[in-house]
């Protein structure tokens, strides 16, 4: 015992021999050398092969040295070639402005008269210059004046606007957000053409400097929620944001719950609808997935198509979805409880059929269910990561071939195969993947409780789950709203059912805005 403790002490007290390396944080602008110059930019960026330093002269003003700095692959070369370099090096010759140009006024002259580009800005801070170049803009130096001209020339390979695969619809828009933030914001702006649509930009990530846009509709979104979003985003300290999931995990209210507390979408129409309900959107550069806060549980069982179909149809579809969610969560547990403890509640013929099916099965109903559900999870996970044709084969082999063989070998009962298959199908009826995963996870403890305590165990699990859900909040908004706390109008109009559009006269109560949806019509 003593030797163990001594060894532990030695291990913990051993001095670090490894050299700890650290990426130096990017200095703030006041710490950078001044003045801004091509030479300084070269010292800051020059070692990377993708950085372009193009030196040239203005035609007719050879004494003013010009340098264009940009990152190859992030710029639209056509813009720079045709509207900057060509103008300055060829077309510019003979103009009267050229005659009056000196090193001191060169930049302003180009800005005012000679560069036919929309996004132009004169800067003198080195930090701004580095940010601009690394974001895809070009930087133009005319002489060594301590100033430079930023030219908006961003243009890189992107996959364009495509239909979102994870949120496909039968009826509704086919366009989805893209990895380019500006494309995504433009898609949103096209949906809401009103000056109240706000987009606040910030950068998160010490190294990635990822652009984030917080969007909401002024007057509809609660100022408290907007402030809280900005506060939570502001306190994120991380070196890189590569997907909106990073942000999602860092801004949610309760980290230790399987339930999603932030909604995400790839669809501009879904985000626009959420903003119209007074919610706040968070868009992240480099991913097509936008986040929506606050989120309540009922919304994870709704899809955009619910608002594009007739209300009567939606009532049925939503009912099916709720039944599906309940089956996904409870079907194996109820089967275990009935087969093990409560045979009296089913007809005798069914009880006999279950008993006959289970005869020869070497394990208890609980173990049988857990093993089968686990096998199902493995098949699902294996199929998910493989190319589509192979994934389908895995599904067929897993579900049909192995399932059939297992029943014939009396390893599992046919009823259990039916229950597990039903559970799997029911899981897919849940529109939102994160919620489906949460329910898949909770299914296991529920099965254990059902196997040990029957319906009492299921009751314990469900009431425990209810207490947990009731204690959750998303940005201060109760997670089970509008059921608890009761918001009767929202509950009746757009939760388990959806009222027809002509009856949805007011916004959901989360917005706390009295203005009718029809703008007072």
């Amino acid at each position: 015992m003593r030797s163990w403790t001594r060894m532990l002490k030695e291990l913990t007290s051993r001095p670090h021999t490894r050299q700890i390396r650290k990426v130096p944080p990017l200095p703030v602008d006041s710490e950078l050398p001044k003045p801004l110059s091509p030479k300084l930019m070269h010292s800051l960026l020059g070692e990377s092969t993708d950085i372009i330093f193009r030196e040239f002269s203005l035609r007719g003003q050879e004494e003013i040295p010009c340098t264009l700095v940009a990152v190859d692959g992030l710029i639209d070369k056509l813009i720079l070639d045709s509207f900057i370099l060509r103008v300055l090096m060829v077309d510019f010759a003979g103009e009267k402005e050229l005659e009056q140009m000196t090193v001191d006024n060169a930049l302003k002259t180009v800005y005012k008269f000679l560069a036919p580009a929309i996004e132009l800005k004169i800067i003198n801070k080195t930090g701004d210059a580095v940010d601009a170049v690394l974001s895809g803009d070009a930087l133009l130096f005319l002489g060594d004046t301590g100033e430079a001209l930023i030219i908006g020339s961003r243009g890189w390979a992107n996959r364009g606007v495509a239909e979102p695969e994870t949120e496909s619809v039968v009826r509704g828009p086919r366009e989805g957000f893209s990895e380019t933030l500006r494309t995504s914001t433009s898609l949103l702006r096209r949906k809401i053409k009103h000056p109240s649509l706000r987009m606040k930009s910030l950068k998160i990530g010490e190294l990635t400097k990822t652009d984030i846009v917080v969007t909401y509709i002024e007057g509809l979104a609660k100022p408290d929620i907007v402030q809280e979003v900005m506060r939570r985003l502001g306190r994120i300290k991380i070196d890189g944001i590569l997907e909106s999931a990073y942000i999602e995990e860092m801004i949610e209210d309760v980290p230790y719950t399987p339930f999603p507390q932030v909604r995400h979408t790839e669809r501009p129409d879904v985000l626009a609808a959420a903003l119209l309900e007074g919610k706040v959107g968070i868009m992240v550069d480099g991913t097509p997935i936008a986040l929506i806060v606050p989120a309540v549980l009922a919304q994870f069982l709704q899809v955009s198509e619910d608002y594009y179909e007739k209300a009567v149809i939606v009532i049925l579809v939503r009912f099916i979805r709720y039944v599906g969610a309940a089956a996904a969560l409870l079907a194996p547990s109820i089967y275990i409880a009935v087969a093990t403890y409560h045979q009296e509640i089913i007809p005798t013929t069914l009880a006999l059929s279950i008993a006959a099916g289970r005869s020869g099965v070497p394990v208890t109903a609980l173990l049988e269910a857990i093993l089968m559900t686990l096998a199902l999870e493995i098949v699902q996970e294996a199929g998910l990561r493989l190319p589509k044709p192979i994934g389908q084969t895995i599904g067929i082999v897993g579900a049909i071939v192995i399932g059939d063989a297992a029943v014939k070998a009396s390893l599992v009962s046919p009823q259990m195969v039916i229950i597990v298959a039903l559970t799997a199908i029911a899981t897919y009826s849940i529109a939102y993947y994160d919620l489906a995963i949460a329910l898949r996870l909770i299914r296991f403890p529920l099965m254990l409780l059902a196997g040990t305590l029957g319906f009492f165990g299921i009751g314990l699990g469900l009431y425990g789950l209810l207490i947990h859900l009731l204690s959750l909040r998303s940005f201060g908004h109760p997670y089970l709203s509008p059921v608890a706390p009761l918001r009767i109008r929202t509950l009746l109009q757009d939760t388990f059912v959806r009222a027809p559009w002509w009856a949805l006269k007011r916004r959901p109560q989360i917005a706390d805005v009295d203005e009718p949806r029809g703008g007072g019509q």
Partner: protein
Amino acid sequence: MERISAHQFVMLGAAVLMGTTFFPVAQVALGVGGRDGWMAVLPAYGLALPLGLMILALAREYPGQNLIKISETVLGKWTAKGIGLVYLIVSIYFGALLLAQVEDTFKRSVLQLTPHVVFIGAMLFLVGALAWTGIEVFGRFAEVVFPLIILGLIANMVLTLPRFEWEEFFPVFGEGIKPILFAVLKLAPYACEYALFVAGVIAYLPQGGQDQTQLRTGVWRAVIIVGTVNALLTLTELLVFGPAEAKRLNYGLLSLGKLVEIEKTISGVESLFLLIWMGGMIIKVGAFYFMGMWGLQAVFGVQDHVKWYLLLAGVFFVIGLFFQNGVELVQELSVTDDYLILPLAILWIPLVWGIVRWRRRGKAG
């Protein structure tokens, strides 16, 4: 400080008033009141009205304080501490008895071989978790569960309709009105349990003028909903079992559940109904758990700390385990109701209310 909305107060109050009373109500009402005992149920629950309204009137005068704290101002520190101590003891003891009743219910009906400790431990875990999350979550829990309990009870009653024997209803007033009055008296402690809970929860109620009206209406609503449903339940048991059999059944509702058959496919669904009623049990035990905490805070000045929640759970656990005999348990519940809860509620609440009113009149005069 946490707050609950007027609607949550209505639901929470109704859920506490209903609690687990749907189990013994028919046996008590028909046992004391005979064939006409069902008529005593609504008036007995009606006692909750004056008591509830008195407490709300006091809450308006002393916002943000519970009745023990108000009593300190009105009756003096040590008298209030004494009453608070009785409140604390009654809450813990009765809450633990209810916990034992939950265990008894499940053990009798569906899981005969499961050890007592499992039921009590599991229920206490849920109740403790609910209490730890706070009164606001407790209110929301009631908002979700109470409608389900009412629906479950109505379903149980409707599904036993084919077994009604209408001749059991007659003769009406065959034994006169006296047994009904005795039944009212015997059922009155159920209303007093509610009143004692309201005495504690007033500290968390909203203070606005419009809220006050809603709160007062809420007391009315709770009494009418719960009184009516329990009266109908008693009537159902009367019509299905008859007065003689119904007063013999400790848990008549469970026997009622056993008789339910749906489309000759699903039968004996009392285990399914128990799932719903379990929510009522959690609310009732939870209410007394909260009352115990409020008592501890008011009398001993303890802070809202996890150790006190665990200590309280420990006391509930030990007392709950002590009562394992169903008949003995029912007797103990009845004695506590008759000799502790009823006197405490009908003496304490009107006394404080009366003094406050008298003093105000004195000032005005």
